[in-house]
């Protein structure tokens, strides 16, 4: 670990930062109303659609977008690809806030938040519940992420003694930090198995844990590439195209594996005929596949993936495809029965937007004030 990381510096309180602050305040207003008057006051959640935008976007999609740290750790520590080590702090930063905000969203979403600690009490826990596994794993992993990210903060604080101690024990937490997302990113898919017929048969599958895990890792790499290009362009840094192209090169194999499993599973169970039925579901299915195939075609070819624009759009396609897959499974192709409809209310949207804004503000703060991004030699 001889790389040198440096704060980017520069003005923190820019116009964009204030704009994000205003979004966060609007979200805060609805948050107060949610806790004073109840969830129904600001949300369109119902007994038919108990999970809406908060669970689907903030938790299920949000933690997958925050898989950059996990995906990069697999590459650097399991496959020993040291050349990617300089990117790991930026990836961890997105992960730490993605997961922390997902955790906060859960507190907003659950009705009886004051009882949340029951998931840690042996007299209450139900080992058969997929939700228990998700709850325990996500909380533990959020803590682990903060520990993994702590060297950055300790460096900024110049707490050298603690930093040395951290370096000795970090290997353990990095190990935990690869295990836990493997477990809960697959379990986020398993959550839907018990819902049975409510999840459209094109998405309801016994392979759903594996399909969720693969897309989470692919989205993690996609997010690292997308975010690095976006941040470099906006913070006036040199594009790290060469290294990003190498990360991008990993994605097609994950997507090909996913497409084979996804379509092979439908074929084996005899559900392929559903693709010819009327309704929006086959189109949504095709859209997912199209986004992934587009990214695969671009990223598979070394000459194409070295172009920053191609890299940018294909990384975005991976992220959007994975997000669409999750939205379809949890909301769009979810049908609890006749009479139930759901579209997120303004209050729900503003709270989600507020959390995204806080995430962006936190990213800007840490990138500018603490040593997150690698200094160029």
């Amino acid at each position, binding site marked *: 670990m001889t790389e040198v990381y440096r704060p980017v510096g520069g003005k923190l309180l820019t116009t964009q930062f204030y704009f994000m602050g205003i979004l966060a305040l609007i979200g805060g207003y609805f948050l107060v109303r949610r806790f004073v008057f109840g969830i129904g006051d600001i949300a369109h959640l119902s007994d038919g659609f108990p999970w809406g935008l908060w669970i689907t976007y903030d938790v299920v999609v949000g933690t997958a977008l925050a898989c950059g740290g996990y995906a990069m750790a697999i590459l650097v520590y399991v496959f020993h690809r*040291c050349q990617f080590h300089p990117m790991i702090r930026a990836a961890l930063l997105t992960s730490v806030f993605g997961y922390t905000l997902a955790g906060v969203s859960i507190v907003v979403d*659950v009705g009886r938040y004051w009882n949340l600690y029951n998931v840690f009490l042996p007299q209450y826990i139900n080992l058969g519940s997929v939700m228990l596994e998700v709850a325990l794993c996500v909380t533990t992993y959020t803590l682990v992420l903060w520990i993994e990210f702590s060297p950055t903060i300790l460096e900024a604080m110049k707490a050298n003694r603690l930093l040395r101690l951290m370096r000795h024990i970090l290997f353990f937490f990095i190990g935990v930090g690869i295990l836990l997302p493997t477990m809960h990113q697959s379990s986020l898919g398993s959550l839907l198995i018990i819902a049975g017929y409510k999840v459209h048969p094109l998405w309801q599958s016994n392979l759903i844990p594996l399909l969720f895990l693969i897309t989470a890792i692919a989205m993690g790499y996609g997010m690292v590439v997308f975010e690095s290009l976006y941040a470099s362009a906006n913070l006036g840094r040199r594009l790290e195209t060469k290294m990003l192209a190498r990360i991008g090169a990993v994605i097609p194999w994950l997507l090909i594996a996913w497409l084979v499993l996804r379509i092979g599973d439908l074929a084996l169970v005899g559900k392929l005929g559903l693709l010819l039925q009327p309704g929006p579901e086959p189109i949504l299915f095709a859209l997912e596949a199209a986004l992934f195939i587009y990214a695969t075609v671009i990223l598979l070819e070394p000459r194409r993936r070295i172009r920053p624009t191609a890299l940018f759009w294909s990384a975005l396609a991976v992220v959007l495809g994975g997000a669409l897959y999750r939205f379809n499974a949890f909301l769009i192709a979810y049908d609890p029965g006749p009479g139930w409809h759901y579209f997120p209310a303004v209050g729900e949207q503003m709270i989600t937007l507020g959390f995204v804004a806080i995430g962006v503000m936190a990213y800007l703060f840490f990138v500018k004030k603490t040593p997150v991004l690698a200094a160029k030699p």
Partner: protein
Amino acid sequence: MNSNRRDFLKIMAVGAAGAATALAAGPAQARLPKALPSGAIGLLYDATLCIGCKACEVGCKAANQMPMDHDSGVEEAHGVSGVWDAPDDLNSRTLNKIKLCATGDASHGGFSFVKRACMHCVDPNCVSACPVSALTKDPTTGIVRYNPDACIGCRYCQLACPFNVPKFEYDKPFPKIVKCELCADRVAQGDLPACAAACPTGACLFGPVTELLAEGHRRLGFRPGETQDYPIHSLDGSEQRTATVTGYVPSIYGETETGGTQQLLMAGVPFDRLGLPPLGEESRARLSETMQHTLYQGMFAPTLLFGGLVYAVFRNIREGCEDRATPTDPASEPEERRHD
């Protein structure tokens, strides 16, 4: 590169071993279907006897101290308020609901009633889904009960229930899950559930589940037009009435559905037209738990994977990245792709 390859192979070997153990153990570990508890009690609802008087709804609200559910539109039209309890379905103020379904089936007058309430499944999805055991199945009576002190309000039970039974108080800042608990306190004192006690026609009948099933099968043997005896309130034989048989769909809903339920339904029209979903004989809870247990049995596979991961990371850090990171050789790229 050699060292990379070695690490990679080790991890893969560990992972494969873990997966293989998990999968090999899989079929043997499949969670057995839950059996009906020995003292299981329940209800048999016969739609052909129901006259839609909703006495059971009134009895239910009184026994459970549930508030009225106003239909503000209707009240406004009549210039009144607080007069009618008018829910249109089960909701957070209504544990039991008689619904009128226009079926268009001329042989049964073109309509049928149906009673909706918790089915008290033999193998309940909600109990399996709940992370904090707020929903539990009584080992003797089989009643699915709710404990608000445990509940975190995650609403996974709502997602899991194939009948959309658990309801949530979205309009309250300190909400609870609300559902029928088969008047467990009344039953414990030897009383009938309030709905069965209120029903004047015997459409809602209380009793041990095995006897209710036997009664249901006795009715399936009736021919339309016959006059037959029907017990009222409960199966203890104290009260009965005679009625003309109008004919049944030849099955009892809940005998096998989702592994069996303790509220059973009979009707003259197909159940799917009454809003009862067609369900397989196996509960989704069984599938879900089998899959989770296969992956996490004794935490064996995760522990193995964890050991491999910590070892790989430890070696990786000890060897250090600095020596190899600097000379990035361009030939390494095709090699990389072979690994992934």
